C-alpha cells in the first residue's frame, strides 16, 4: 500500500509514518515566532543567487520576505477575537503548478496548523529546487518542530490516500481545475471540515489608452507581458482577454510596444504558433474576425466575444482583444469565472463604480496591470488566514 506513496519533505520521514502523522494533534500558536523565523529563512534561500533562473521562486521569495517582515499586520485586529489553528490542513495540488501550493501552505503554517501537502507526480526543476531548500531547513535542529508538523507527499491519483487524508483533515485546500476539485470534494470529510477551492478561473485586462501618454502605453505593454509570460497556461491570474478603450492608432502603438518585449524561444517552443492558430481559428470560426501574431503573442480580434470562446483558449500567449467604449461596458462580459481584472488608464471613481456594477459572483481582484501574479493572503475571494484558523470570541 505504501509503495504508492513517497515523502518529498521532510526527507527523513518514511511513508509508514503517514497514518501516525494524520492522527497526531499537536499544533502551534498562530503567528508563532518559530514559524515566522522559518518563513524568513525560506525566503532567504529562495532569493539566493542560484535561484535567479527560476522567476517564480524569486517571486515566492519576495512574498515570503514580506510576510516575515510584516507579519504583525496580518494579525487579527479585533481584541475580543483570538485566532486558533484548525488542526490538520490538507492541500491538494494539481499536476502542472510548480509552486503555487506554497502560498496556501504558508498560510496554513502561519496559523499554527499541521499541514499535509500532496504535490504533483511530475516534478519540475523549480519544484525540485524548492524542496531542496525546504528539506535543508527541516534538517536544522531549530526547525525540528516545523518538520514534525508538516509533510509533503506524492502519490498516484488512483491510490486511496486522498480518501484517507480527507477523513482526518480539518480543512481541505484544493487547487484546480474544476475536475480535480470535484474529485476531492466527493470524498467524505469530518462534518466540520472546511473547504477552500481554487477552481477554473481566468483573468482579464482593461486599458483606456485615451488617458495614457505614448510612453505610459509602452510601459503598460511591458507590464502586461510580465503578467502573461510566466505561466504559458495563462490560467487564473494572467489575462486572456484584453478590453481596449481607445482608437486604432493607439492600438498599433501598443502592439508595437508589445512586440518589442514579448520574446520567445522558437526552438524551445516549436508548438506555440500551432496552438495559437488552433485557438484563433476556433474563435473566429464561430464569430468572424481576425487574428495576428505579435512576436510571442497571438492577438485574436473576434467580431463578437462570448464566454464560450474561452473554452478553446488554452493559454500559449493568446489574447482575445475586445473593443469597448467604457469600463462599464466591460462589466457585461464578466461572470463568476473571472478572477482578476488588471487595468491601466482608469480612475478610482470608475473602478468603484465598476465594482458596484459587477455581476454578483465575478472578479475578486482589481489590480494595476503588472501586478496580476502578485499573490496575496486574500485570494480568489478567500481570506486564507481567516479561512485556515478558528476565531474564538471571548467576551
Amino acid at each position, binding site marked *: 500500500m505504501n509503495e504508492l506513496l513517497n515523502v518529498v519533505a521532510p526527507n527523513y520521514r518514511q511513508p509508514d509514518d503517514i497514518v501516525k502523522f494524520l492522527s497526531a494533534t499537536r499544533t502551534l500558536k498562530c503567528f508563532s515566532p518559530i514559524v515566522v523565523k522559518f518563513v524568513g529563512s525560506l525566503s532567504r534561500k529562495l532569493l539566493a543567487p542560484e535561484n535567479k533562473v527560476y522567476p517564480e521562486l524569486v517571486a515566492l521569495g519576495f512574498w515570503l520576505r514580506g510576510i516575515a517582515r510584516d507579519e504583525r499586520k496580518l494579525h487579527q485586529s479585533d481584541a475580543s477575537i483570538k485566532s486558533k489553528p484548525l488542526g490538520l490542513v490538507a492541500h491538494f495540488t494539481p*499536476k502542472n*503548478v*510548480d509552486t*503555487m501550493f506554497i502560498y496556501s501552505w504558508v498560510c496554513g503554517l502561519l496559523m499554527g496548523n499541521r499541514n499535509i501537502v500532496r504535490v504533483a507526480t511530475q516534478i519540475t526543476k523549480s519544484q525540485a529546487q524548492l524542496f531542496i531548500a525546504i528539506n535543508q531547513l527541516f534538517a536544522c535542529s531549530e526547525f525540528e518542530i516545523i518538520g514534525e508538523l508538516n509533510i509533503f507527499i506524492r502519490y498516484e491519483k488512483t491510490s486511496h490516500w486522498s480518501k484517507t487524508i480527507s477523513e482526518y483533515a480539518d480543512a481541505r485546500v484544493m487547487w484546480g481545475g474544476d475536475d480535480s476539485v470535484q474529485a476531492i470534494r466527493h470524498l467524505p470529510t469530518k462534518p466540520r471540515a472546511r473547504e477552500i477551492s481554487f477552481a477554473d478561473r481566468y483573468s482579464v485586462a482593461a486599458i483606456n489608452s485615451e488617458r495614457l501618454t505614448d510612453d505610459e502605453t509602452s510601459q503598460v505593454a511591458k507590464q502586461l507581458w510580465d503578467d502573461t509570460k*510566466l505561466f504559458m*497556461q495563462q490560467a487564473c491570474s494572467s489575462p486572456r482577454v484584453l478590453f481596449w478603450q481607445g482608437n486604432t492608432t493607439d492600438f498599433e502603438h501598443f502592439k508595437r510596444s508589445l512586440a518589442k518585449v514579448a520574446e520567445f524561444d522558437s526552438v524551445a517552443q516549436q*508548438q506555440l504558433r500551432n496552438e495559437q*492558430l488552433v485557438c484563433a481559428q476556433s474563435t473566429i470560426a464561430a464569430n468572424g474576425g481576425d487574428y495576428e501574431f505579435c512576436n510571442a503573442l497571438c492577438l485574436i480580434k473576434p467580431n463578437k466575444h462570448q464566454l464560450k470562446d474561452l473554452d478553446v483558449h*488554452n493559454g500559449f500567449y493568446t489574447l482575445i482583444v475586445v473593443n469597448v467604449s467604457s469600463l462599464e461596458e466591460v462589466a457585461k462580459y464578466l461572470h463568476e469565472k473571472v478572477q482578476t481584472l488588471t487595468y491601466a488608464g482608469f480612475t478610482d471613481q470608475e473602478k468603484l463604480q465598476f465594482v458596484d456594477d459587477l455581476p454578483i459572483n465575478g472578479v475578486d481582484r482589481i489590480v494595476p496591470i503588472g501586478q496580476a501574479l502578485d499573490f496575496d493572503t486574500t485570494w480568489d475571494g478567500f481570506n486564507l488566514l481567516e479561512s485556515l484558523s478558528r476565531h474564538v470570541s471571548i467576551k
Partner: protein
Amino acid sequence: MDTAEQSLQQAAYQDYLDAFEQLYQQPVFGLSATQKQSYLLSALNHLHRHHQIHCSAYANITQGNQKLSQIGRRTLSELDFLAVRLFKLMQLSSVGPEDIFRTLQSSGTTSQVTAKITLDKDTSQRQSKVLVSIMQQVLGKSRLPMLIIDAKSTVQDRTKFNARAAGIQGLAFFGRDHTYALNDDMQPDWDLIEAFCNRHKGSPILVFGFTFMVWQYFIDNLVKQSKRVDLSTAILIHSGGWKKLESEKVDNQTFKQRVSETTAIRRVHNFYGMAEQVGSVFLECNSGYLHAPSFADVVIRNPSDLSAASVGTKGIIQVLSTIPSSYPGHSLLTEDMGVLHGEDDCSCGWKGKYFSVVGRLPKAEVRGCSDTHADDVTQISDGIRNE
C-alpha cells in the same frame, strides 16, 4: 437563396470538378513543378471558393484574406490553411445533412477526442479513385494476393473505430485471397503464412501492415524464432509512423534491412496519410523519400511564424489535397514535422516534391494551475497514422 445565387454556386462546384478532371488525366508522379502548380492551384482555388460558399466557419476563418479571394492565390504557399485539430473541436462541413454519405471518425490511442470528417458520395468516390491511381504506380493494375500483418479480429470489431481497421479496409481493395498473418494474440500463425506463400509461389504478392505491427509482431518474431519466410516476390506497403519504434532505435533503413533479411522482401513502400485527407497519400519512392502525387502537395512551414520554409529546413508539414469537397480539408497544417528535400529531381525518377516526416510537433509542457487538458488536446489522432 435565389436561383441566380444557386447557379453561381453550382458553377463554382463545376469549375472545381472540371479542374479536378484535368488533374486526374495527368501522370501521378509525372508532373513537373510549373505544370503541376497550374493544375493544382486551379483546383485548389476553386475548392477554396466552394468551401467559403458552403461552410460558414471556413468563410469566417479565411475572410481576413479577402483581398486575394477575387483573383485566387498565385502560389500554393499563399493558400489559406486550417489547423488540423479544428476537426476535433467542431463540425466542419460543406454539405447539408441530407447529402452526408458517411462520417469518418478518427480516434488516437491516447486521446478521447475524435476528429469528425463529413463525406458525401462524391468525395468518398474521389478518395477511392485517387488512392487507386496512386497505389497502382507501385502495385500495378491487377489485384495481388494479400498478406495482412494483423489479426482478423482487428477488422471484425465494429463497435468502435479502429485506425488499423480503416487502413486495412482501404488497402484491401488492392488485394485478393486476403490472409491475416497474426492470430488473435498477435502471434504469427506460421502455418497459415507458409500455406499462403506456397499458394502464391513465384507470383507478385502484396504485404500490408502498420509499421509497428510489421516490426513488432512479424519481423521481431522471425528474428527471435530464427525463422525465415520467402516473400521475395512481395511488395511491402506499410504506414503508421515511427514513433513506437523510436525507443528501439529503428529507422527506415534499419527497418528495410531487417525486412529484407527475414523475408527477402526488397520492395518496401511506406506511406504518409491521415483521416483528415483520405486518399491523397504520400508514397515512399525507391530512393526512400515520400512523394507528393499529382493530386496533392506539401509545404513545410517554419514553427516560429508559420511562413513557408526553404528546402532542407525542418518545419511543420502542411498538406494540400484536391479531393475534399464535402468538408474544408483541402489545405491543412498538420502537427507533424518534416523536411522538404527537393522538387522534380529525386534520384528515383518520380517528379514532384519529395520529403521526409521527422516526427511530431513536440507537446507543450504547459505551466499553470488549471486542469491540463493539454494531454488530451494536443495529442493528434488520425485514421491512418497510429501512435
